[in-house]
């Protein structure tokens, strides 16, 4: 423990009380503190009116994504020591409407998630619960990476397309669509493809890969999008050239 402090420059906004501004707070510096610890220090002992989301503080609930010195970050995994001597600028995730202070509006994402039908689709008449569907470790590995998304929204904040095309389904939701498309137990791929390729944004994604770079769980949404685009293009030409052919 030391007497060192570090300055936070925190984005403040109250919709009922004027425009946005930045507020500075000096908080104790600890080598093993993350930005979230510093924000909680502010909330608890300096200014209880600062609003932000957090819960698990172990990088799995996905609540605490913010811009830390301009980079989309999970604040529970962003160490102050990496930003010494400061200041540390903390802002809400970009590309989202702001509800209040560091809290962004998630509703758009929740709707996009819903659109891609992120669940197993089966043609079975009835669900027979006497046994599990078999799936080998190799089959599991095909989609496992895309199932690791914690919906933290960092990829939306990093995405250059979202900034221009508001209704772009976006990296995380597309990765989840691909997660189910690749699951050997699923039979709903066609349904999902129809949704995905009606969406303009996917063709604008230029594989810059900023989404995959910021992903704290190494989900690689950019890879998922490119896979989906390739399949979509193949599908398009198949339908164009061989309208009688069934999808593989």
């Amino acid at each position, binding site marked *: 423990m030391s007497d060192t402090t570090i300055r936070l420059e925190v984005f403040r906004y109250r919709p009922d009380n004027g425009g946005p501004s930045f507020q500075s707070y000096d908080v104790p510096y600890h080598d093993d503190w993350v930005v979230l610890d510093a924000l909680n220090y502010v909330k608890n002992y300096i200014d209880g009116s600062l609003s932000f989301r957090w819960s*698990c503080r172990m990088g799995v609930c996905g609540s605490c994504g913010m811009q830390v010195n301009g980079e989309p970050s999970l604040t529970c995994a962003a160490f102050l020591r990496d930003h010494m001597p400061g200041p540390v600028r903390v802002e809400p995730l970009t590309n989202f409407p702001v509800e209040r202070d560091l809290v962004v509006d998630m509703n758009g994402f929740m709707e996009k998630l819903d659109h891609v039908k992120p*669940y197993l689709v089966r043609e079975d008449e009835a669900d027979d619960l006497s046994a*599990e569907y078999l799936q080998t470790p190799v089959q599991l590995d095909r989609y496992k990476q895309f199932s690791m998304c914690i919906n933290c929204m960092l990829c939306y904040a990093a995405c250059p397309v979202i900034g221009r095309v508001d209704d772009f389904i976006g990296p995380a939701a597309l990765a989840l669509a691909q997660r189910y498309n690749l699951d050997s137990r699923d039979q709903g791929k066609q349904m999902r493809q129809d949704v995905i390729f009606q969406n303009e944004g996917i063709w604008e994604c230029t594989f810059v890969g900023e989404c995959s770079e910021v992903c704290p769980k190494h989900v690689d949404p950019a890879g998922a999008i490119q896979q989906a685009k390739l399949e979509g293009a193949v599908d398009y030409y198949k339908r164009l050239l061989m309208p009688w052919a069934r999808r593989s």
Partner: protein
Amino acid sequence: MHRRTSNEPGATGGFTHATGQSRDRRAVRLQRPPGVPKITFVNQTRHDVLIIGAGGAGLRAAMAVVEANPELSIGLVSKVYPMRSHTVSAEGGMAAVIKSNDAREHHIYDTISGSDWLADQDAVEMFVDEAPRELIQLEHWGCPWSREDSGHVAVRPFGGMQIERTWYAADKTGFHVLHALFQTSLQFSQITRYDEYFATSLLTADGRCQGCVALELRTGELHVLRANAVIICTGGFGRIFPFTTNGSIKTGDGLALAYRAGVALKDMEFVQYHPTGLPGTGILITEASRGEGGILLNSEGRRYLQDYDLGEPLDVHDPRHPQNRTMELGPRDRLSQAFMHEQAAGRTFDGDYGDYVQLDVRHLGEDRIDTRIPFVRELASNYAGIDPVVEPIPVRPVVHYTMGGIDTDVHGATTLPGLYAAGECACVSINGANRLGSNSLTELVVFGARAGRHAAAAVVGQQLSDGPEIDRQVAAENDRLSELRGRPAGGERVAVIRDGLTTAMEAGAGIFRDEASLSACCATLRELEERVARISLDDSSPVYNTELISALEIDGMVDISQALAHAALDRTESRGSHQRTDYATRDDANYLKHSMAYRTDGDPRIEYKDVVITRWPPAERVYGSSGDKDGKSAT
């Protein structure tokens, strides 16, 4: 699934923030003029079944209602978006008998002996019988269970088990289970979600629970949500302690709702300390690390558990290691207590965040660590700066799970008609005095589904009562919140009260307790209750006022903590996780009973209810290889 959103002008964010430094999008676009309504009630909304809490239990309950009766309308209220619920943090796995070397009798016996015979055996039998089907259901809903080469689900050993029976999705089981449940639930139009709504009180009329009042975070509006059945699935309350694996949302809100509605809180004195948390943060290092063969070492490099009646250690390279129900695979309460004895004897390491021992998984090798417990490696390296492949992990006991909760029967029904509870907030009880590892996730789905089914049947033909009884409660709730928000500045700070609470609980009702420590704790809690009434807020905004939510949470936490401390004070025996240094042995003659705490104007009133024994009469809990054989279940 529908998402309920507010259309109030000015109620939502007024602009999109865009300051990406690498891109030229710094403009802040103001879209709506400011102007937010004060606390107001919006019209009543009616559903058939209302579920408060959208983690594993709440989501399973919602889908069980749909399965039971697709005509019913369900309101799903949660103070966080469903995928943020704390189910997400569960790591190791989920128990159910599915392999041919296992049998229901084994799972039942492990659960009952793990509970130190305080579990209700009829409930345990139902739980064990319904567990496999529920886990297969999760599989059919897309949960990416780890697999054998054959394609069947794989199982791993866990503490306190005779036979390995823990299904797992690497070491992010809870994360995968929660996301599978949530994503699956999106297809059901019968479910209307109220994301980021905080339930502040239950509504009762004609002797039945008929809904709740809930605060919408993004607008600050109060909503009256009516239903003929309410299922509370809000999780446990580990956050009343300072050092816990629990996320910040685990504040026991649902327990406070039920307690204030006159329902008993059962077995509150039983709090599980997980033996392996990271010092400082309290982040959990899963028991799966020991199930895979990890060992615990004291500062002398000794596998000290051999000194605590947990059997003899085998060499880590012996193919029989780790042995079920032995050494590192003993039950959590006994392992955490062993740490305390080692600490007292000076055989722990001294660290910045208190004493610790070492969890060593190095002998597993990098490949196995990365396949079976990758999250352990990620967490240890991110939060302790340790790579478990080359260094032992520092660990110490940490509050992990609360066995006690809202008193329910095997259908999740409480004594208040129309009110149900399921999951960690409930106490059926299958966990008794110490929960068996990997039973908690299973409990969410088995009893979430049970509560959902029962509620779905019970609401048919019921009519909501209209009239002054409900109106009075709604008005009183409005007054309570207005009074809190209107208090002049300069009162007590939420965080200071919270610090006082957690300090008092750790000091008075930690792993070891006695009459003096508990009496002092009760007295402190009484003072804190008075101080809670003097909390004032820095934050006057109606929009996303998290300080207001924290104030409401702490109010409930102090309430339910009193139930815990008084139940612990009155239970003059030691059983499972409740260890009284002044009453060191189990006393079946007087305390083979559930404690039942009722709220009064003064101290909680503690009553007792007999434990249900079916075929497993109380016996000694024996662990180690000898106990493995002796302890086999009655057949």
